[in-house]
């Protein structure tokens, strides 16, 4: 199974191109790194791939078919700031199970403790919230995961913990992962292959 | 560049105003037309009258013409600058409004200034000393003022200062029985003090509360924290960072308050028998003086629009922070 982005172009204003004719391909079970300077359009590309940003030209497809809106998106995006990705008025239990009922295996693998489920989001740290965001997005229907700087805000141990869990799960579930970061060392550890955005972006 | 932007801005506003006035005309005309009150009846009042005369009057007011025809007649005249003849004052509506509005404008302007200045100072003091006794006193004062019916306050002030103490006249903007040449400035001012005070009261509370909250917000901002970290403190700090940042929003709010100012003037003028536009509004409404009432509605809409326009100009062109949002989006 392949996630293909072809000829992706995006701009905010006239003649102010952020992305131009970007091509990207990601296979099932592949861990691909995307590196780039801050403000280079990495996050925009992530949003386009996962259907968050609609105002672009070009195509995003899985094995040649486009992704229809309104149903569960097989391409899930994880953000840098997990505290913005949860409804502050919901308990963690409800947040966790919004997309699907998360299996005990995944909870164990992320080290999510039982008593966290009854807390409010503001009672957990960023690293803990990020585990929830990941567990929530890894349903059996998820085929690709876009990870946009997901461990930039956590300490090195938590970062290693989180990535260890993700790599285990995606390997087992044959999920393709796009890792976006500006940290080269991390990329070298995680990814089979790394592309630099400035090399594929024709601006 | 900036001038061009301003031109476009004003152009858009004028188009908006025209649409607004058209809709206001239609809506208010329709509302008044719905009224089950018979204008002829209201005009005649207690007088006895011949059926022929009644027919003439009915003809004059177009009781039997269909609504839309009446509307287009009226609207056509409005476009020519003719708002019709006031039924109760027997004078052109434009003349009545000009006369009355000028009187009200003095009242509204003085209380607007008073409430702005007093409210801002109170708000700054309360915000600076938030949590202290003086803050609590100002807060309580404001809460009570906001909950006070304006017309009741007018009654009480009238009772205390005019009836009991006799310091001020009981009503009217000038002493009765004098021609306008004989009225001194002192007379005018004396007749203005109580209405101005009453009218400014609500505004004081609103501006003070707003200023207080905004100042507290500013004083807990990152940039004030940093200023403190750099050794700034006390009144100097509030002056350098607080007052500067709170002033523009407060002035903007004060311009947005034209609508309530007008409403307040109606009540205050009624109690103090101050012959301004507010009193004319009540008279026109109670005695079904449709041309005058519609004229006043149009003028009040213009008045409110002007306030909003100035607020928008401050917001768009004077506050430097706004440009930031334009560049980032």
């Amino acid at each position, binding site marked *: 199974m392949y996630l293909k982005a072809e000829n992706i172009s995006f701009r905010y204003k006239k003649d102010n191109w952020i992305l131009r004719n970007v091509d990207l391909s990601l296979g099932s079970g592949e861990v691909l790194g995307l590196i780039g*300077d*801050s403000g280079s359009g990495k996050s925009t590309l992530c949003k386009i791939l996962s259907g968050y940003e609609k105002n672009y030209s070009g195509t995003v497809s899985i094995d040649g078919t486009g992704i229809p809106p309104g149903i569960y998106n097989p391409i899930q995006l994880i953000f840098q700031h997990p505290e913005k990705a949860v409804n502050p008025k919901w308990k963690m239990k409800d947040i966790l199970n919004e997309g699907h009922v998360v299996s005990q295996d995944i909870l164990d693998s992320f*080290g999510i*403790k039982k008593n966290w489920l009854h807390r409010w989001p503001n*009672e*957990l*740290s*960023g*690293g*803990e919230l990020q585990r929830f965001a990941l567990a929530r997005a890894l349903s059996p229907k998820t085929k690709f995961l876009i990870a946009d700087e997901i461990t*930039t*805000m*956590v*300490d*090195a*141990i*938590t*970062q*290693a*913990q989180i*990535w*260890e869990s993700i790599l285990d799960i995606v390997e087992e579930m044959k999920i393709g992962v796009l890792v976006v970061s*500006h*940290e080269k*060392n*991390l990329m*070298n*550890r*995680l990814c089979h292959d790394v592309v630099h955005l400035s090399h594929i972006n024709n601006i | 560049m900036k001038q061009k932007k301003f031109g476009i801005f004003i152009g858009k506003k004028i188009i908006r105003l025209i649409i607004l006035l058209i809709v206001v005309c239609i809506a208010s005309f329709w509302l008044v037309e719905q009224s089950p009150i018979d204008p002829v009846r209201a005009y005649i009042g207690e007088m006895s009258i011949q059926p022929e005369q009644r027919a003439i009057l009915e003809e004059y007011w177009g009781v039997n013409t269909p609504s839309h025809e009446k509307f287009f007649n009226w609207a056509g005249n409005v476009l020519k600058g003719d708002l019709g003849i006031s039924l109760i004052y027997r004078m052109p509506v434009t003349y009545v409004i000009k006369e009355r509005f000028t009187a009200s404008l003095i009242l509204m302007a003085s209380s607007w200034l008073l409430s702005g200045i007093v409210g801002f100072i109170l708000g700054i003091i309360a915000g600076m000393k938030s949590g202290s006794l003086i803050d609590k006193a100002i807060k309580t004062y404001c809460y009570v003022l906001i909950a006070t019916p304006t017309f009741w306050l007018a009654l009480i002030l009238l009772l205390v200062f005019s009836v009991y103490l006799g310091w001020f006249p009981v009503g009217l903007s000038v002493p009765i029985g004098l021609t306008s040449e004989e009225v001194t400035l002192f007379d005018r001012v004396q007749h203005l003090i109580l209405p101005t005070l009453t009218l400014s009261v609500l505004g004081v509370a609103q501006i003070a509360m707003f200023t207080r909250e905004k100042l507290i917000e500013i004083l*807990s901002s*990152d*940039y004030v*924290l*940093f*200023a*403190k*970290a*750099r*050794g*700034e*403190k006390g009144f*100097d*700090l509030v002056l*350098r*960072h607080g007052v*500067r*940042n709170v002033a*523009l929003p407060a002035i903007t709010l004060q311009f947005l308050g034209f609508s309530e100012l007008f409403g307040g003037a109606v009540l205050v003028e009624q109690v103090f028998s101050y012959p301004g536009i507010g009193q004319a509004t009540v008279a026109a409404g109670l005695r079904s003086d449709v041309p005058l009432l519609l004229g006043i509605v149009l003028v009040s809409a213009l008045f409110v629009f002007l306030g909003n326009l100035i607020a928008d100009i401050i917001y768009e062109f004077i*506050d*430097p*922070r706004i*440009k*930031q949002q334009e*560049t980032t989006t």
Partner: protein
Amino acid sequence: MLNNAEMNIEKRKEGEALLKIKDISLSFSQYVSGLRQTELKVISSLSMEAYSGEILAVVGSSGSGKSLLAHAILGILPSNAKLLGKMEYKGQELTQEKKEELRGKEIALIPQSVNYLDPLMRISDQVIGSVDERNAELMKQTQRDIFRKYDLKPDVDRMFPHELSGGMARRVLVSTALINSSKLIIADEPTPGLDEKNLNETLSYFRDMANKGCAVILITHDIEAALKISDKIAIFYAGTILEEANIEDFKNDGENLRHPYTRALWNALPQNKFQAIKGHQPMQDEIIDGCFFYERCSRRNELCSKGTPQLKMIKEGLVRCNNVS
């Protein structure tokens, strides 16, 4: 100004830290939904020392309360904060009054972002700060000199904060600390999300300041950045400092590091072993009796669960652990 060598001699001669923090703790009482009041402990039994001519990096995860440490030193905590413990500056007790007297003069803060500048004040006025009429001319001159050094053109003087680009903003923020020739400089997360070139440039400003004799406290979550320029690194964990290590201790498998947590942190870096240990940092509302690292420690014993371990001096570094010697 003293040069680097002279500074070091002076330091050794006096052997005295510019700033000494002894066992401070910081808690907040705050209202939560329904106006229930809770007590939140952010910092507990934290000790550290900062020396002139040195950069001390305080490294800990984001949102763990490191910024509040800076605010505590400057005495700009909110009114619902409770600060206990002792601080000394130049050997004298640093009371709230003393802090108010020193801040902006001898002690300076470099904030994280342009949000810390007044949005309605022009840049040069902000950098100069509040000064007497008599000194205004001189200060203006100093400000211009500093800006010239940082390659900030004269038109920057008249700009508003939102008109600054990211790089300009960082240089302006650094300038605010230089204008009063402060002795102690506290930089709070000055390198968020910077790419390598900008990161190195910003870091070099701090090295400069230390070389000129300032004591610099660099608060950051980026241990890699800290390792590039610091002299010592203090490891901030669950509201306290577990270890203050010298930069040379961070090498190989971290066998020179004193605390098991520091070692785990070092080994978790992608460029090292990328190896995770189990468990989580305690939550701020959890009450812990023993060592804060007890839950996750591989070498814990019964003593560790009872009371905070004493601060020990081991191999020219400080550590709070019962099991090192």
